[in-house]
C-alpha cells in the first residue's frame, strides 16, 4: 500500500511537471512596444488573460530595432518555447527563416502570411472594419470631409485607408477623403508629434473626423483632435476611453482574442497550422460602441452601420481589398 502510494505520487508529480514543461509560450512584440495603446497592447492583453486564467507564464520580448526580430524569435525557439507568437507583418521574413530551422516548434504570426507546415498565419479583414468606421465618420462629418492617417506606408495600412474611403463614400457620395502616411520607416509607428502635426494640417484642409491607423503615432492624432474639438477614430484596441467625447469610435481588431486563442489552442491541442482569416463574420474586426462614445453615435448612425455590417456579412456589399490588386477605386 505504502509503496503504491509512493509510486502514485511519483507518477503524479512526473505527470504534472511534464505538463508544466510542455507549454512554454512566448511572444515577440513589434516596434511600438506592448504599451502602444493599440495593436501590440491588444496582444499583450490577450496573453495576460491567458496567464491569469491558466497561471502559465510566458516569455516576452519587445523589439526596439528591426535587426532584433530574427534574433528574438530564434532565441525563443532555442530556449524551447512553444508556441512562439510573432506580432506584426514585419516579422514575417524573420519568422520564415527561424521556422524552417525549428520544425518541431509551433509558430503563429499575426498580420502576415507565412506558408510553412509549422506556422499558423492569422490575418484580419481590416478593410471590412474600416468600411464601417468610414461610414460612421462620413455621417458624423459636418464639413463634408474626413481624413485618414496611416503609420508606415505599407500595403496593409493602405488596406485600412481604402476600406475607410469606400465606407465614407458609401454613406455620403461626394465626401472628400484626405489621406496621409506618417513615414516610410518603422519609426512611423511611434511618432506622436508628427501624427499631431498631420492631424492639424488635415483639420486646416477641412476634415473634422480623422481615423488613425498608426500604432503609437495615433496618441498624438487623438490629442490633436481633442485640442481642436474634432473627432478621432481609434484602431486595433478599443481606444474610446482615451478621450471620451472626441473619440467617435474605434476600429477593433480582436488581436487579443487571436493571441489568447493561439496559446489556448496549443494547450488544448486544437492549434492548427495554416491560414486563419478573421473578418466581420468571424467577429475578428468590429466597431467599438461603449459608454464612452454612446452620446456621439445617433440612432440613425447606429442603424446604418448595423445594416452595412449585415450586408457585408451577407455579401451584398463587397469591400474592396487593397492587397488583392494594389489599387483603391475609392481614392
Amino acid at each position, binding site marked *: 500500500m505504502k509503496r503504491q502510494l509512493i509510486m502514485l505520487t511519483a507518477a503524479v508529480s512526473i505527470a504534472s511537471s511534464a505538463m508544466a514543461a510542455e507549454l512554454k509560450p512566448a511572444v515577440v512584440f513589434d516596434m511600438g512596444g506592448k*504599451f502602444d495603446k493599440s495593436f501590440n497592447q491588444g496582444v499583450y492583453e490577450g496573453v495576460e488573460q491567458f496567464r491569469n486564467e491558466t497561471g502559465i507564464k510566458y516569455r516576452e520580448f519587445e523589439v526596439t530595432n528591426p535587426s532584433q526580430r530574427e534574433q528574438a524569435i530564434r532565441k525563443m525557439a532555442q530556449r524551447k518555447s512553444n508556441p512562439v507568437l510573432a506580432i506584426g507583418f514585419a516579422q514575417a521574413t524573420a519568422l520564415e527563416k527561424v521556422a524552417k530551422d525549428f520544425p518541431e516548434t509551433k509558430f503563429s504570426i499575426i498580420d502576415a502570411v507565412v506558408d510553412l507546415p509549422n506556422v499558423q498565419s492569422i490575418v484580419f479583414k481590416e478593410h471590412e472594419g474600416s468600411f464601417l468606421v468610414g461610414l460612421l465618420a462620413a455621417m458624423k462629418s459636418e464639413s463634408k470631409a474626413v481624413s485618414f492617417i496611416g503609420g508606415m506606408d505599407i500595403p496593409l495600412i493602405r488596406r485600412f485607408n481604402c476600406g475607410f474611403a469606400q465606407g465614407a463614400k458609401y454613406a455620403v457620395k461626394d465626401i472628400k477623403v*484626405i489621406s496621409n502616411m506618417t513615414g516610410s520607416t518603422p519609426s512611423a509607428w511611434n511618432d*506622436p*508629434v508628427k501624427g499631431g*502635426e498631420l492631424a492639424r494640417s488635415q483639420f486646416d484642409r477641412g476634415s473634422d473626423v480623422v481615423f488613425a491607423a498608426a500604432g503609437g503615432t495615433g*496618441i498624438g492624432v487623438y490629442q490633436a483632435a481633442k*485640442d481642436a474639438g474634432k473627432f478621432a477614430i481609434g484602431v486595433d484596441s478599443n481606444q474610446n476611453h482615451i478621450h471620451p467625447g472626441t473619440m467617435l469610435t474605434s476600429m477593433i481588431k480582436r488581436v487579443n482574442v487571436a493571441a489568447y486563442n493561439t496559446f489556448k489552442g496549443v494547450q488544448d491541442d486544437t492549434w492548427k497550422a495554416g491560414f486563419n482569416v478573421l473578418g466581420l463574420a468571424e467577429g475578428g474586426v468590429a466597431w467599438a460602441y461603449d459608454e464612452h462614445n454612446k452620446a456621439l453615435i445617433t440612432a440613425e448612425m447606429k442603424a446604418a452601420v448595423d445594416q452595412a455590417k449585415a450586408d457585408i456579412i451577407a455579401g451584398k456589399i463587397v469591400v474592396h481589398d487593397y492587397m488583392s490588386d494594389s489599387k483603391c477605386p475609392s481614392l
Partner: protein
Amino acid sequence: MSEFLTIMLSTFDATIRVSTPLILCAMAGLFSERSGIVDIGLEGKMLAGAFAAAAVASVTGSAWLGLLGAIGVAISMSLLHGFACITHKGNQVVSGLAINILASGLTVTLGIAWFHQGGQTPLLSGDARFLSIDLPGALAVENVPVLGAIYSQLISGHNALVYLAFITVPVTWWVVYQTRFGLRLRAVGENPQAVDTAGISVFWLRYRAVICAGLLCGIAGAYLSTAQNASFIREMSAGKGYIALAALIFGKWRPKTALLACLLFGFLEALTVRLEGVPLPLIGEVPAQLMQALPYILTVILLAGFIGKATAPKAIGIPYSKER
C-alpha cells in the same frame, strides 16, 4: 487666393509650434558654447526635462510645477556636465554624449518603475498642460482681411511656452551683448587667460553659463511633454537637440541668426507635413519621399552656397587650467 492664404498661414502656424523647442535649445547652446563649453548634451537635457515635466505634472496636476521640475532636472544635468568638464577638465563631447545616453535610459527606466506604462507617463489634461492662449482682440479682428487673419491665427492661439521661447531670443541677445555678465561670458569663450588675469573666476562664469543652458533646455523639455504633447513618450526629443545645435552653428553662434536657422528648419518640417499628397500648381503631386528629403537637401545647399564660414568661439572645447 484665400485658400492659398489659409495654407500659408497654417504652415507658418505649424512652423512656430515645431521651432519652439529648437529655439529654446539653440539659445541654451548659445550660452554654453559662447562660454567655451561644447554642449552636445542639449538632446539629453531636453529629454530628461520632458520626462520630469510630465511626471511632476501628472502627479501634482499643475503644468507650472512640471515646468519647475523640468528646469530643476535639466539644471542638475548641466551641473553634472559642468562638474565633469569644468572642475575635472574632462572631454566635453564625451561628457555631453554621456548625458544623452543617461537621459535616454534613465527616463524610460524611471517611467516603467513609477508609472508601469512601458516608459510613458499617464496622459495629462486640463491644468496639467499648457493650453493655447487667445491674445486680446483676436476674435474681434478675425474678419479683417489678411492682417486680421494673421493676428488671430498666426500670432494668437499658442501656449505660454511658445511666447516664452520667442521672448528668450531678445533676452539672450541683451544678456550676451549688453550686460557685464555677457561681455565676460564672451571673453571667457575667446580668451579665458585674459579673463582670469582680470581677476574674474573662469570656473564660476562657465558654471553660470551651463546653468543658463540647463534652464532653457528644461523649458524646451516641458514644452515637448506638457504643451505640444500630453505625455512623455520614450525618445520623444527625436534628435531635436542635435538639430538645434546645427542651427546654432548655422547661425554662427548669434541669437538672431540662430533664431532664423531654427525657423528655417521648423518651416521645412511643417512644409513636409503639409505638402504631402497635395497637388501643387504646375508640378502636380510631389512624391512623399522627395518631400521628406527636402529639409536635408536644402540644408546642404544652404550650407554649401549661402552661409559663409562659421567661426566658433576660440576657446571652445578646451578645459581651462591656471597653470598653463
